[in-house]
């Protein structure tokens, strides 16, 4: 079985792509890649994989953290953590 390496992005890519933390409630997108290896591992364990679609459900009353729907369940994460997810 072949092992897939996750790609880590270069700075120049940052202009085109949006981070999950920039999404507003109601917005939908597909995970492209991660910018933080440690965080990516935790996120993938929770079902946030490249190619998986995400719906931003709501923000906490004070604007942080955010609640998203991913692979059929709801997940909350801090904006700082969401900023490591690059969306297509």
């Amino acid at each position, binding site marked *: *079985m072949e*092992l897939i390496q996750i790609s880590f992005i270069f700075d120049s890519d940052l202009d085109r792509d949006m981070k999950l933390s920039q999404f507003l409630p109601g917005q939908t997108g597909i995970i492209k890649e991660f910018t933080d290896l*440690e965080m*990516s*591992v935790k996120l993938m364990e929770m079902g946030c994989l490249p190619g998986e679609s995400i719906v931003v459900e*709501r923000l906490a*009353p004070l604007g*942080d953290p955010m609640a998203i729907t991913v692979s059929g369940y*709801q997940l909350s994460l801090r904006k700082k953590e969401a900023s490591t997810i690059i969306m297509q």
Partner: protein
Amino acid sequence: MDGDLKVALVGNPNSGKSTLFNVLTGLNQKIGNFPGVTVEKKIGFVKLSDQRNAQITDLPGTYSIYPKSRDERIVMDALADKNSPDYPELIIFVADASNLKRNLLLFSQVADLQIPIIIALNMMDLAGQSGIEIAVDELAQKLGVQVIPISARKQQGIDRLKEAILNSTSIPLQLPSIEVEAIAPELIQKIQDELNIEHPYVALQLAHQYENMLFLSAEQKRKIQELNQEFGFHSQKSQASETIARYNFINDVLFDTVKIHSDPKRETHSNRIDKILTHRIFGFIIFFAILFLIFQSIFAWSEYPMSLIEQLFMWLTDMGTQILPPGLLTDLLIDGVLAGLSGVIIFIPQIAILFAFISILEDTGYMSRVTFMMDKIMRKVGLSGKSIVPLIGGFACAVPSIMSARNIESWKDRMITIMVTPLIACSARLPVYTLLISLVVPDEKVWGIINMQGIALMSLYVLSIVSAILVAWVMKLVIRSRERGYFIMELPVYRMPRWNNVLLTMYRSVKAFVFEAGKVIIAVSIILWVLSSFGPSDRFEKIEARYSSEAMKKQYPQDEIDRLQASEKLENSYAGMLGKSIEPAIRPIGFDWKIGIALITSFAAREVFVGTMATIYSVDGDDSHVESVREKMQSARNPDTGLPVFTTAVAFSLMMFYAFAMQCMSTIAVVYRETKSWKWPAIQFVYMTVLAYLASFIVYNLLK
């Protein structure tokens, strides 16, 4: 009942693992601790057939075998070491059928450890409702393990699960998932050879987690470290590619075994509740209303059972003194053991009520929303969203609240919460505060409505919140933790609470408190009894001789003599001598030796202060007793100066002392139990005492 088959429950949080554990074992469970950690270990027993029993261990819920917190480390500790007493002969993997993909990640990891495993496919009913169709037999075939659909909540499929346990083999049958060796080919082989490890995935896990594995020797750890370096092993990169490979495998498995007919209707059900419960404004209003209700209930509902317990102990004391022959043993039994016991039992109603509420909040899924809402505020002071519940509970009693801090996953957040919870003005401080306030604050109204005494009391409550927040903030800077804080947290769908689960949680927490904390409380009570009822024998003999003289009997009635004698004996007891010996230390904050005795005795519990004051100033123990203590204290004069002892400065200094000092051995006992070390209660005791002394010193000198 003894178990002949060792079974471990493994699964994601919110997968219904604990519900299944309760269904399988009922009341037939005991709570221990995993070696070296604070997490409690739940072990239960289940009868499988006439001949066979199983011992079931409920391992902490985790999303992957790579631990994010100390608690999750236990799973790996139990499953990696063949010689561990926790090493299971069979794993029941509890999977949430409505979220199979994420659940199977952990399954495929655990399965690769090559321990016999079966899957309990939980929440099949919920999955059905949300349009998820699972071909159970095909799934079982593809994975090579038994898959039993169950509903732990509705207690469906439990008999089939028991049958499956009986039918399980002692050889692992699961089919291979990913090619583990491909992740770190030579390294895995080397570790297997060096440490004599049978299964490649165990070896890979050791390469990742060797530092934290309790069963490895220093020599073995050093060897793994060397091998890791030699082969340029990068833990996180390896974990990332492993995770992706596993999801590829899972996608293959699920491709033709799970069909999702998405039904947006149920989605909005939980969402709709969230729109209100986590609303910008209503969210907080509802949350504070719920807290208010809990706070009120802890006070209101526990009042009656607590007074019953009090009466029961008074009756027991009464009976004891009447029936038992007078003497030392009787005194020890009644004033030491019985008094200590009542100090334990009296907390049961509050603990039971607080834990019932917490269990309901957890069960319904509301607790994770509270965390979600409060996280931003609490994070600023080094706490977590989940700290809010113990802190609020602290207004009633720190003991159950510190126990409830178990819900906090992050070790650092949990420790800070435990450390600051006793600062919150608990109900035991109330009698002390009311007594002292009534002494020095005039019962007058400002602007016709605002009661001065009420303001004083409220200020003390506000002070407690402010100090808890400030100390938490300082501790955030001081306590170091290698754990990186995460807030990647599942928001489970709203559900009705499971009432038998609520009852079991109440039962477990009360039992744990009575047996664990109770031991310490009774021991300290006995020590306090010894200290306050004994003194150097020559002194006691002289006192007794003097009070039994005929001259005394003529001058005073017998009960007056008894009171005076008790008071003088206390003064000359070891506790009294201690009071006198600490007098130089407490004089700068305005206390004399009598208050010193009260400080020592009220170490058992803060409210003992009132009782000790009563004994020292020898007041009748009748109903109007607070009133008369107050009068005695008010008229107390310093024998040297002739000035009143309880000035405004002294009273406020005392209030500050009780606000900050760790004057509660139950709390110390429970902190020891919860942290499994004397280090934390010691730090807590020292910092709180220092704070208390400083606050009292400042207040006393300002008001003097």
